[in-house]
C-alpha cells in the first residue's frame, strides 16, 4: 500500500513538472530577449570583452556606424575635424547624462582614451592609441587630440567596440564586471554574472524616440548553438553568432530568419620568422593546396555568395579591395615547390586554432585534409579560445584566427602586417610592405592611397603569409523582430529594434 502511494506520488510530481513552467508575459511592455555566448569579461577594453549585445546597449560611442551604408554617424561626438590628420578637434554632444545621473563631459572622453594606456588593464586598444601625444579639454564639450604623427583616418577608431565611453568618476576596476554603467540606450537593472542581464529603457536617452523597446533581457548561454532551441521555443528572440549549420536549420523553419549583418575574416597565418614558412616556396606550396570551393562548403556556404577567399588581408567589401584571381589548386606544383625548398618528402607543421569559435574546427580540419595530398601534414592543435589567444597566438608556426573587419584597413595593416606591429601573428617582415603601410597611414589623397593598396595586395599574393577566408557573421532572429541592426563594428544597435 505504502509502495503504491509512493509511486503514485512520484508519477504525479513528474507530470506536474513536465507541464509546469513557462510564465506568460501579460504586461504591455515591449521586451527584447537575446541569447548571447557566456562572456568571460565584460568591461570594455578587456581582453575578451565580447559581450556585444550587452555593451552595445549600456554604453555609447563617440561615433557610430550606419548599419546599411557604413557611413560614420555622430553619436556622443557631434563633430570632428582635422587639418592634416595630426590635430583632431572633437565636439561633444551636450545634455547627455550617465545612468547614475552625472553629466557627460570631455573629462570622460579623456579618461576613456587615457585608460587604454594603463599597463594594469591590458586594454585591447593599447597599441592603437600609442600614437596619442596629448589630450586637451579646453571646455566641457570639446576635446583636442594631438597625435605623434598624422593619421588621416584616425577617427574610425572611435567606432571600435572597445571604445565605449566610460565615466571618469565611476570605479570600473571593481564594478566593471558586476555593475557596469554608461550613457547608453538601456540601463542595467540587474546582472547575474554568467547567467543573465536585465536592462531597462533609459528614459533620458539623448536620442529622441529611442530606444524603441522598453526592456532588454540578455541570457548568457554556454552553448550558443543549443540556444537556438530557446529561439524556437520563443524564450529568446535574437541569437547572434550562430554557426552555419544552425543557419540551415533555422531557414527551414517557419517564423525565423537568419541575418548576416557583416562578414568576418578568418586568417590562416604562416609564421615567416621560422621554418618551414620562412621560405616563400613553402608558403606558395601551401597556397597551391587550397580549394576555396571546398572551404566554402565546409563553412556551409557557397563560394562567391556568402564565403570569399583571397590571399590578402583586405576583404572584398572594402573600397580598397583589388580583385586578384585565384591561382587554382595544383598539388603537383605544390610538391615541386616543396622539393625545391628542401622538403621532397613533405613536412609536418603544428596548426593552432580556437576550437570553440564558429568555423574554427571546420576550417582547421578541412585545411588539413586539403594540404595532405601534397605531403603537408598539419598537426592540429585546438584550444578553447582564451587559452588559444593568451598562450599560442603570436607564437605558433601556423595559426587560424578570427578577425573582425576594420573599417579602415590601414589600422589592421599596421597592427598585424607591419614588422613592428603588436599583433603581427605571421611575423611578416617585408621592408617594402612596411614602407607601404606607413605611407598609406599618412597619405591624405585617396587616389595615391589606393595605388599603395594595390601594390600591397600584389605583394601579398606573391609572397604573403596569410590566407583570408571571409565568412558571414550570422544572427538568428524570430520574424517578429524588426529593424535589427548590426554594422561591421560588431555592435548590435538594439535601440532601433522592435518586436511585435
Amino acid at each position: 500500500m505504502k509502495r503504491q502511494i509512493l509511486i503514485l506520488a512520484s508519477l504525479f510530481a513528474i507530470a506536474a513538472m513536465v507541464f509546469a513552467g513557462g510564465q506568460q508575459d501579460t504586461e504591455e511592455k515591449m521586451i527584447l530577449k537575446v541569447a548571447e555566448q557566456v562572456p568571460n569579461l565584460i568591461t570594455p577594453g578587456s581582453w575578451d570583452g565580447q559581450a556585444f549585445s550587452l555593451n552595445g546597449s549600456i554604453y555609447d560611442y563617440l561615433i557610430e556606424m550606419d548599419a546599411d551604408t557604413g557611413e560614420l554617424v555622430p553619436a556622443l561626438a557631434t563633430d570632428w575635424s582635422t587639418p592634416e590628420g595630426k590635430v583632431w578637434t572633437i565636439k561633444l554632444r551636450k545634455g547627455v547624462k550617465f545612468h547614475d545621473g552625472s553629466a557627460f563631459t570631455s573629462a570622460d572622453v579623456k579618461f576613456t582614451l587615457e585608460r587604454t594606456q594603463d599597463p594594469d588593464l591590458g586594454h585591447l586598444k593599447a597599441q592603437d592609441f600609442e600614437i596619442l601625444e596629448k589630450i586637451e579639454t579646453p571646455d566641457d564639450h570639446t576635446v583636442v587630440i594631438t597625435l605623434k604623427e598624422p593619421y588621416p583616418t584616425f577617427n574610425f577608431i572611435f567606432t571600435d567596440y572597445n571604445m565605449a565611453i566610460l565615466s571618469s568618476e565611476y570605479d570600473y576596476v571593481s564594478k566593471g564586471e558586476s555593475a557596469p554603467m554608461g550613457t547608453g540606450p538601456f540601463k542595467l537593472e540587474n546582472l547575474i554574472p554568467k547567467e543573465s542581464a536585465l536592462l531597462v529603457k533609459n528614459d533620458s536617452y539623448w536620442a529622441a524616440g529611442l530606444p524603441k523597446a522598453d526592456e532588454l533581457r540578455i541570457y548568457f548561454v554556454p552553448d550558443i548553438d543549443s540556444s537556438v532551441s530557446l529561439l524556437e521555443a520563443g524564450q529568446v528572440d535574437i541569437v547572434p553568432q550562430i554557426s552555419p549549420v544552425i543557419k540551415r536549420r533555422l531557414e527551414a523553419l517557419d517564423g525565423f530568419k537568419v541575418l548576416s549583418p557583416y562578414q568576418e575574416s578568418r586568417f590562416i597565418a604562416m609564421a615567416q620568422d621560422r621554418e618551414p614558412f620562412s621560405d616563400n616556396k613553402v608558403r606558395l606550396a601551401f597556397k597551391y593546396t587550397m580549394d576555396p570551393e571546398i572551404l566554402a562548403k565546409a563553412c556551409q556556404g557557397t563560394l562567391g555568395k556568402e564565403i570569399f577567399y583571397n590571399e590578402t588581408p583586405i576583404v572584398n567589401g572594402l573600397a580598397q579591395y583589388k580583385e586578384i584571381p585565384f591561382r587554382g589548386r595544383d598539388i603537383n606544383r605544390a610538391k615541386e615547390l616543396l622539393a625545391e625548398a628542401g622538403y621532397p618528402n613533405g613536412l609536418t607543421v603544428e596548426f593552432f586554432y580556437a576550437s570553440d569559435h564558429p568555423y574554427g574546427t571546420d576550417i582547421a580540419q578541412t585545411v588539413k585534409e586539403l594540404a595532405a595530398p601534397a605531403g603537408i601534414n598539419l598537426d592540429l592543435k585546438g584550444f578553447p579560445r582564451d587559452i588559444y589567444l593568451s598562450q599560442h597566438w603570436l607564437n605558433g608556426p601556423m595559426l587560424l584566427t578570427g578577425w573582425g573587419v576594420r573599417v579602415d584597413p590601414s589600422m589592421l595593416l599596421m597592427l598585424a602586417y607591419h614588422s613592428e606591429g603588436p599583433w603581427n601573428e605571421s611575423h611578416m617582415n617585408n621592408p617594402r610592405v612596411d614602407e607601404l603601410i606607413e605611407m598609406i597611414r599618412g597619405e591624405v589623397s585617396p587616389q595615391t592611397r589606393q595605388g599603395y593598396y594595390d601594390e600591397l595586395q600584389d605583394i601579398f599574393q606573391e609572397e604573403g603569409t596569410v590566407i583570408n577566408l571571409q565568412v558571414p557573421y550570422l544572427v538568428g532572429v524570430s520574424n517578429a523582430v524588426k529593424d535589427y541592426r548590426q554594422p561591421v563594428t560588431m555592435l548590435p544597435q538594439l535601440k532601433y529594434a522592435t518586436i511585435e
Partner: protein
Amino acid sequence: MDFLKRFGKRLGFMVLTMIAMSFLIFFLVEIMPGDVAQTVLGQSATEESVAALRARMGLDDPFHLRYLRWAGGFIRGDLGESLYMRGVQINTIFWRKVGHSIILALTALLFYVPLSLFFGVLAGVKAGKVTDSIISFFGLATMALPEFVSGIILITIFSVRLKLLPITSIIPIGENLWQNLNILFLPALSITFVMFGYVSRMQRSSMITVMKADYIRAAILKGMPRNYVIFRHALKNALLPTITIIGMNMGWLFGGLIVVETLFGFPGLGSLTMSAIKTRDIPLIEACVLFITFIFVLSTFITDMMYAYLNPRIRFKRGDV
C-alpha cells in the same frame, strides 16, 4: 556510547579529509601551467604589466601564505573574489548555482529511489524468473550508460520525436527555478537512469540474501502469507544496505552533475565548474571542486551514521547480539 565514539571518529576523519583535500586541490590547481594574469591581460601585454598584475593578485606570495589566506577565507564563509572577473565576489554567483544543483539532485533522488526500491524488491522476490531477468538486464544496461548517453536518448525521445521539452533551458529573468520546474525533468531523468541500475541491483541482491535467512523461511513455513512476510520483515532488513548505497551515491551524483548540466545547459554547479576551468578562474575552480568534494565526504559521513543508527547491532552494541 559506542555510537557517539563512532560519530566522533567519523567526524574527525571528515574534517581531516576536507583539510587534506583542500590542500591537494589548491596545490593541484596552482601548479598547473597557464598564467591567469597572462590570460586576463592577453598576449600583447608587456612582461612588466603581467608581473605587476601577478603581484596585485597576490600570486607571487609564497605558497603556504596563499593557501592560508584562501583556506582562512573559506572557513569564514568568504569564498574569495573571482580572479578573472575582478570585483565579482564568488559568493554572489556560487550559492545560487549550488542551490539549483541541489534541487536537481533531490529531484533525481525523488525519481530514482522509489523506482529502484520497487523494482529491486520485485526482482529479488521473483529471483530467477522472467521478471527478474528483464529488470536485471534493464538495470545493468542503464547502469552502464554514461549520463550523457542516456541524456541524448532522452532528448531524442522527448525533444526530437515527441517535441514535449526543449533541448536546453533557461530560467527567464525575474523568475526562479520553482517557476520553471520543467527544466529539471530531463536532466533528473538522465541521472535516474544510471542510479536506477545501481541501486535496483543492490536492492535485489540484498532482498535475495534476506529472503534466504532462517527466520524468514521459518515464518513462511509456519504458514504466514508470503507477501506479509516480505513487507513486514524482509523489507526492513533489505533496505538497510541500500540506504548506504543511496547515501554514497549522493556524492557521486554531484560529480556526474557536470556532464548532465553541460548536456542540458542547466545553470548549476556543474556548468559553473566548466566555465571556471575554461577561464582558468583559479579561486572559482577551487571553490567548485572543494564544494563537490565536501558534499561527497559529507554524504559518506551521513550515510555511515545513518547506517550505524539504524543497524541495531552497531547502535546497541553490547557484545554479541
